[in-house]
């Protein structure tokens, strides 16, 4: 990000901020320096080039620093730096949640006296007042910028396909790193997560989300944010309202489908119309009137105002009759989807046997094929992802694929032909996730035959030479481990959430 013009900001600073408040808040801002490294999406046993990014964190408690999840994603080393110093203090990630873009850091060996002050998190903010943005300038002094709130919405996060409460700020400051603190009257109002320098708009993770996150992070286990588990659509079209015989004017959204295993699937049906959610009337675009923030997408009533496990009353119309159902909210994990996003780029389970690279399909794997991935990838798996990534037939179902074949004498004849094919069975046993694959392979000792979707002949491996072939493959292709399997309960150590749909037309997910 570009550096701002210092003179301009200083002028603003003099006008808007009392000196004492500025000194207090200045002692809470740290620069966060992150070295990160992602797993190679194509060769999951190795990693991509490491990189470095810098941003900011705010001291929120003893040895506790709050920053954005996007900043520390795939971190290998996190270091903190105080203003006007060169020393780097190592820190570790306590918890990171990509569904709200927040992360809590623990400072390892803080030298005493630290000179740092914990900043309280605001509980209220007048929409009309001005706020102050804090960051480092080029010689690592604290730099202040004036900002004004212009919009509150459930907005899309910059680095993950989830929606979260977001405040848009209008500012002349060129924000030079995510996590820059936004303060008002000595309290933390939010963290900047992205900026559009042309429109001078910066998006901020606001204090209600931070409060929610820190409350949850303070009491183990971390539960994450709630979701309901259904796909819905706006219900504006008068013809459709008349067809469905919904006569409440300008109210109600349409249920399209429910995700199996969620609270919604127990009490809602497709074509139900939701009139009220948790005591709030919902309009035909899916908005309600929030007591603090005004008109807001009703998903905030789920993600912001409730916790997983809460039961909420939902007023619906079904076949012209109104009723109230009790819906139990849950925490949906990314792994619950048929095709998880894996936005965090975590190592995916895989098995390399006889050169067959067997893994599960993820959104990350698809997108790793470049900007034209929708066209260059096999249209079947792209369609599975775009049209039904949530559509599990049974809990835990995923799409097992033969991602490719590492050529070796043992797999001669199969090598060029099969790539990104859906695997339906291993050794004659049908499989619906990698756990099934590992179970079959542990039982039989190896992959004997693979059955691919719509391929009427199994791919068979010679068992007599397989052990030798695997050793040769591991050596030739430098595969340190031919198998990577997560231990039971090892999934999602960092609160990897499930995905909502995009902001464009079509179905939306709660």
């Amino acid at each position: 990000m570009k550096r701002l013009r210092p003179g301009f900001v200083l002028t603003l600073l003099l006008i808007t901020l009392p000196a004492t408040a500025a000194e207090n808040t200045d002692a809470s801002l740290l620069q966060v320096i992150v070295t990160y490294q992602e797993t190679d999406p194509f060769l999951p046993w190795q990693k991509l080039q490491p990189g470095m990014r810098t941003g900011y964190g705010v001291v929120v408690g003893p040895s506790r620093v709050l920053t954005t999840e996007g900043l520390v994603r795939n971190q290998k080393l996190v270091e903190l730096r105080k203003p006007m110093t060169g020393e780097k203090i190592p820190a570790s990630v306590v918890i990171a949640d990509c569904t709200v873009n927040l992360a809590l850091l623990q400072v390892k060996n803080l030298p005493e006296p630290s000179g740092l002050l914990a900043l309280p998190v605001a509980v209220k903010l007048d929409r009309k007042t001005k706020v102050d943005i804090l960051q480092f300038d080029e010689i690592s002094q604290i730099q202040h910028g004036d900002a004004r709130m212009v919009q509150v919405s459930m907005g899309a996060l910059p680095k993950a396909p989830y929606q979260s409460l977001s405040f848009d700020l209008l500012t002349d400051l060129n924000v030079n790193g995510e996590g820059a603190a936004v303060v008002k009257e000595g309290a933390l109002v939010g963290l900047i997560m992205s900026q559009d320098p042309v429109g001078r708009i910066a998006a901020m993770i606001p204090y209600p989300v931070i409060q929610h996150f820190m409350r949850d992070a303070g009491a183990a286990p971390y539960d994450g944010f709630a979701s309901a588990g259904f796909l819905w659509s706006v219900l504006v079209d008068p013809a459709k309202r008349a067809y469905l015989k919904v006569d409440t004017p300008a109210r109600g959204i349409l249920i399209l489908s429910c995700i199996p295993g969620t609270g919604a699937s127990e009490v809602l049906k497709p074509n139900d119309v939701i009139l009220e959610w948790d005591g709030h009337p919902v309009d035909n675009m899916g908005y309600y009137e929030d007591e603090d923030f005004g008109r807001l997408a009703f998903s905030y009533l789920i993600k912001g105002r409730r916790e997983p496990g809460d039961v909420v009353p939902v007023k619906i119309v079904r076949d012209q009759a109104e009723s109230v159902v009790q819906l139990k909210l849950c925490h949906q994990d990314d792994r619950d989807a048929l095709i998880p996003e894996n936005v965090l780029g975590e190592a995916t389970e895989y098995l390399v046997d006889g050169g067959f690279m067997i893994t599960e399909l993820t959104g990350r794997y698809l997108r790793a094929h470049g900007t034209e991935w929708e066209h260059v990838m096999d249209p079947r798996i792209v369609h599975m992802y775009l049209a039904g990534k949530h559509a599990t037939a049974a809990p835990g179902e995923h799409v097992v694929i033969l991602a490719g074949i590492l050529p070796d004498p043992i797999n001669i004849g199969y090598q060029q032909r099969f790539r990104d094919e859906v695997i339906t069975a291993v050794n004659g046993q049908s499989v619906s996730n990698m756990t099934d694959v590992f179970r079959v392979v542990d039982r039989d000792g190896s992959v004997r035959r693979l059955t691919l979707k719509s391929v009427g002949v199994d791919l068979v491996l010679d068992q007599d030479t397989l052990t030798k072939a695997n050793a040769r493959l591991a050596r030739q292709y430098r595969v340190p481990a031919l198998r990577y399997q997560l231990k039971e309960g090892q999934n999602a150590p960092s609160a990897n959430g499930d995905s909502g749909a995009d902001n464009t037309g079509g179905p939306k997910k709660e």
Partner: protein
Amino acid sequence: MMKSSLNAGALAVAGGVLLFGLATRSPAASAATAIRSSVVKIHVTFQSDDYSLPWQSGQPMIATGSGFVIEKRRILTNAHVVSNARFLQVQKDGDPRRYEAKVTFAGHDCDLATLTVDDPDFFKGTSPVTFAKELPKLDDEVTVLGYPMGGDRLSLTRGVVSRVDYSVYSHSAVDQHLVLQVDAAINPGNSGGPIVFNGKVVGLAFQGLMWAENIGYGIPIPVIRHFLDDIQDNVYDGYPELGAYTMDTRNPALRKDLRLPEDKTGIVVYYVDPFGSAMGSITNGDVLLSVDGYPIANDGNIDLGGNIVVFAELLERKQCGESVSFKVWRQGAETTVVVPLRTPRDPFIYRNQYDTHPEYYVLGGLVFSPLTREYLRTLDRRTTTMNTQQLSYYMDYAKVDGLYQGRDEFVVLIRRLPHAVNTYADTFVNGIVTEVNGTRIKTLADVKAAAANPVRGFHVVNFAGMDESLVVDAEAVKKADRSILRDYGIPSREYFEEGATP
């Protein structure tokens, strides 16, 4: 003045080439020049339909190609030269007259077409070319005649046969046949001209290769023969499709699994096309050991009199109605399977469409049309949605994933012509229609039929992969229909090909 001087320059060059050809006294060259009176220039005005506005066509375009006179007062050329022709003329070398011509047969799967000229004067001074009996060999010197860009008169280029291969014909985009690769220059305008060896036609120039040099492709004599034989009964049936997808059996473990003895070679069938000739007689897991007595190697090749070619090439020579005999290894035993080759009737193959207009039906500003490769091409790749991607999936996997079942074509809501009756229909555009007013949709005609029976006063349309229905007020649609057609300049609310109208 400018124009005529340019013509004079071009004439001089063409003349030079011909004289040079004569002076060398190469037997190949002099025989080739004897054919030149039979090589004609084809002037075509063509117009392609706009598949996103299916009631209208694009700008008329002018192009030229080549062709040559064959027996029975016909001219042979490429199908792509005369496709979508609105006006067609032919011209002989050195004759200023242009004669109006018409297409008698077009084989879009093999990119060949025959023309005829009504005016008897045209054929005076021409003589039908003689076709060679067999393919030329590698390194044989061939001459290409035609009317390529860069001049008006007949042009002649020379090179050798570089390769005889099996490759996709870009005109249909899906069919594969034999091709003759030569290093003689083949340029736009050459299309349809003869490739001559020893005074006999061995092929017909038809396509080049982008980004490559000295690679020109010709349609070789077996493919030309196949086409001319096919149309002898005045109907073009096209190539029969075997429809058996195979993989090789080089993998020893696979061979063992198939219980294939050491001394047997062949390829194993892993998918049988429901519209192919093999359906019903060949199944998954069958190993094809030989075809019409020629043993098939583990990589799918056969030895055809010293030429190693893929086994499919043998099928190339067959006509619909004939049959092909396979030795098949099935469940541990050898058996003989005779596959009758049927005339292909496969609506899900998605060849490029020519000489036909897209069918459509407009209801309340909603335009329905069958899925075609042409329509998919009109879509912007940069704005891929679930709906547009689904069209690619349905096109590629129609048969393999059984998506075609219960349908004769995929009907797509290709566009919304905005009007108050259809304001909320945008999310459904490019969806594949499954049901209209409770009726399952097999063809576009079903949409029209179902539109006559609204449900409780509404038209309700369901789409593949979508949980939501499109609902429009039937009475409002009825009122708006005429003005929508008028405002958007649509001459007719529907177009159905002959015989398809409900």
